[in-house]
């Protein structure tokens, strides 16, 4: 016996072993012995003497006399089965023997009792629980444990009296009673109390949390109604669970609990069908309709006093329906037999089994000490949902990682493609630029040197060209060529380099003609449009200005200056000479027109003005940024 008891004490109280504990508790404890002459460590009472007092409930009353109508009843004793009105009260009497030699504390343990009780030992009251009197506490699922005061115990025969006041609505009765070693019974009580009261309380909290979690998932993902139904189901389950441990239940809560089993069943089915990914709208509508009808029927029955038979009917139909639903769900869930679907199906099967057990228990077909087990099945449903969520989460992470690595490859591929197409584009661009450049050069050769040389050749053939003219024309041609070559040098927007190089080319000839060149340049901002063509145009304009001066001005001195006119967003190149001045009628007129034409193409301008006291000033204005 001691061995068994200590083994029991070592039993883990964890959630996982709840079912093992239930199995042990629902069985008749093997270590209990019937009360007999010699004191046992624990005496189990499966019988008691009972006296039924057909009167209202006094707040206090002395124990009924020995002469009262004591009857022997079997324990557990159900008032409903015995057909006793719950407005009355009653007394139970148990007697046991105390061994004077033994000095251990003794206790009484009652697995289940209607809570409003007063306990007497050898005629003296030693414990009261609940509310005795006209307004008893509404409670039906309480376990009790009291130490027996050592002062009241006496060697030999002892008498224990239990005064029991049922409330009007709840089940009334007394389970088997255990008297004996306080430590052994204390452990027994703790286990029972855990499963009967603490576990449902703990699970209620868990349901609340998970309901909130599920609700927030649904709130963010409205298309996943599964989580909405799950949250709703858990909330109904909370209402139901409170009923298992809340003492002195309010009427409104009691009313809510009445149809809760129906809705719990319906919502569980709706949730499970969505979990399986196979909602069945018509079937679900039928279930809802039936639950609604049942709800009305239950309330109506409660109102007219037919509650017992109607609950039996409704619950029976639901019991049968549960089995049908189980078959439907198993078809649905096993179509895709994933771990979480199998977990879900097992959870629902266990819940149906537990519900069935509780239904039998409720109908008192199992005995008054039987436990209500429905609360214990609900965590399994949460486990199945958790499994689904874990799978999804892990799957999402995996998918995300895979996507990431694919993206990396994709980006690399795109990058390669882009580089390739960029390369192609650049090649095309280069080809086009080369083609354009070639065209420009061709045009240049054709219009410039080419025609120059042709006309020179023609004149030479006619014999009308003097040696001097011939040299001059050829020198012009070479200048032309040099300009073309210089314009091909990438100068990166630096006009001064371009002008400087022209000076470098022309200065020997100017010096030869006895002309001094003054270089009065100021720094210029970069001109982004200085490509070969534009450079050539500018060089031609300035060269033309030099040539005109050289040929017609008879100057001694030329000054080239540059500067920026920020107000008009332009730069200027100025060429002044101290020659004979500009003569509009002269041969140089065509040259000036050429200069003007070229300048306009650059969005620029050329002014040629005579200076006071002789000399000419040629101004070339160029935009800071070329406008197209």
């Amino acid at each position, binding site marked *: 016996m001691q061995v068994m008891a200590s083994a029991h004490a070592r039993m883990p109280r964890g959630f996982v072993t709840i079912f093992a504990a239930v199995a042990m508790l629902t069985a008749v404890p093997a270590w209990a012995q019937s009360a007999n002459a010699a004191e046992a460590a624990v005496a189990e009472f499966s019988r008691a003497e009972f006296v039924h007092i057909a009167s209202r409930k006094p707040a206090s009353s002395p124990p009924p006399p020995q002469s009262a109508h004591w009857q022997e009843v079997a324990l557990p004793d159900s008032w409903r089965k015995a057909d006793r009105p719950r407005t009355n009260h009653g007394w139970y009497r148990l007697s046991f023997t105390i061994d004077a030699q033994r000095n251990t504390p003794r206790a009484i343990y009652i697995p289940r009792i209607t809570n409003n009780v007063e306990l007497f030992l050898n005629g003296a009251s030693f414990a009261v629980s609940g509310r005795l009197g006209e307004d008893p506490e509404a409670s039906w699922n309480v376990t009790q444990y009291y130490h027996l005061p050592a002062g009241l115990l006496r060697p030999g025969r002892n008498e224990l009296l239990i005064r029991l006041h049922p409330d009007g609505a709840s089940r009334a009765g007394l389970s088997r009673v255990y008297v004996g070693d306080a430590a052994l019974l204390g452990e027994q009580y703790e286990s029972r109390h855990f499963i009967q009261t603490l576990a449902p309380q703990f699970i209620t909290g868990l349901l609340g949390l998970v309901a909130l979690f599920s609700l927030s998932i649904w709130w963010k993902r409205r298309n996943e109604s599964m989580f909405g139904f799950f949250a709703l189901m858990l909330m109904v389950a909370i209402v139901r669970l409170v009923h298992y441990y809340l003492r002195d239940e309010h009427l409104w809560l009691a009313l809510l609990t009445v149809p809760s089993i129906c809705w719990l069943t319906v919502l569980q089915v709706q949730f499970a069908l969505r979990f399986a990914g196979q909602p069945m709208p018509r079937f679900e509508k039928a279930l809802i309709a039936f639950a609604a009808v049942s709800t009305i029927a239950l309330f109506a029955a409660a109102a007219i006093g037919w509650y017992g038979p109607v609950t039996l009917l409704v619950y029976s139909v639901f019991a049968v329906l549960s089995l049908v639903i189980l078959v439907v769900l198993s078809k649905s869930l096993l179509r895709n037999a994933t771990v979480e679907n199998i977990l879900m199906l097992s959870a629902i099967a266990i819940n149906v089994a537990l519900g069935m057990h509780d239904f039998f228990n409720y109908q008192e077909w199992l005995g008054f000490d039987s436990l209500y087990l429905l609360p214990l099945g609900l965590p399994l449903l949460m486990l199945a949902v958790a499994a689904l969520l874990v799978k999804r989460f892990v799957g999402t992470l995996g998918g995300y990682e895979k996507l990431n690595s694919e993206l990396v490859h994709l980006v690399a591929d795109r990058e390669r493609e882009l580089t390739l197409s960029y390369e192609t584009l650049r090649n095309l661009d280069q080809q086009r630029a080369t083609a354009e450049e070639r065209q420009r050069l061709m045009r240049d050769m054709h219009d410039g040197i080419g025609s120059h040389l042709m006309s020179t050749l023609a004149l030479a053939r006619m014999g009308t060209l003097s040696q001097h003219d011939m040299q001059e024309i050829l*020198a012009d041609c*070479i200048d032309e060529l040099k300009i073309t070559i*210089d314009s091909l*040098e990438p*100068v990166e927007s630096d006009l001064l*380099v371009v002008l400087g*190089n022209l000076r470098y080319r022309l*200065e020997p000839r100017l010096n030869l003609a006895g002309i001094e060149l003054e270089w009065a*340049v100021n720094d210029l901002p970069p001109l982004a449009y200085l490509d070969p063509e534009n450079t050539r145009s500018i060089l031609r304009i300035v060269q033309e200005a030099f040539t005109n001066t050289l040929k017609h001005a008879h100057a001694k001195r030329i000054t080239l200056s540059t500067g920026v006119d920020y107000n008009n967003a332009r730069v200027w190149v100025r060429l002044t000479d101290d020659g004979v001045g500009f003569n509009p009628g002269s041969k140089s007129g065509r040259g000036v027109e050429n200069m003007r034409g070229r300048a306009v193409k650059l969005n620029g301008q050329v002014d040629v003005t005579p200076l006071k006291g002789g000399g000419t000033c040629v101004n070339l204005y160029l935009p800071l940024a070329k406008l197209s």
Partner: protein
Amino acid sequence: MLARVLIVEDDSAFRARYAEMLARDPAFDVIASVGTAGEGLAMLDLRKPDVLLLDIGLPDISGIEVIRHASQTLPKCECMVVTVFGDEEHVLASIEAGASGYLLKDASPENFLAGIRELINGGSPISPIIARRLLKRFQAENVGNAVEDLADKAGDVALSQREKEILLLASKGFNYPEMGKLMGISPHTVTSHVKKIYRKLAVHSRGEAVFEANRMGLIRTL
């Protein structure tokens, strides 16, 4: 002092013209006038001229090779390239090979002789575009550490502040007298600076070749 000149030019008309122009100045003595690089190389070794006047476009091998040979075997010989356009590619390649100046083929006799005289007196010509090119090249290479290491070994081939200033002014089109005035030095000092810059470019190019060779050697030993 008499300057002994070797002419290497494949066009006989130009050969004759150069000789004729040089003959005007008693300071020059044309010791030979040849039409191929091979002959030019032979004459360099044989006659060791003071001045080499040559065209780059020669029929047998590039004039660049002749310049390289001259600058390596006759450090005192002034190499002068005669080009049609004075275009940058030709001129820079010649300077890198060791030439210290260049002349234009269409130059007037006065300018032609002035150019040679200036060269002998320690001055080199520079065009704005070439000045700009050199500035850019030295700037770009000052950034590289490897070249700076090399600079330590090969002597100072980086440009001095003054040399940079000269290149900058030259790129803006100023001539030597103007630069001298702007910088407070004589025009002659300016031209000798330019010649030094050309030397640096040549050393630099040789240095690059050495550096390249070292690098390849290193790779081989690894």
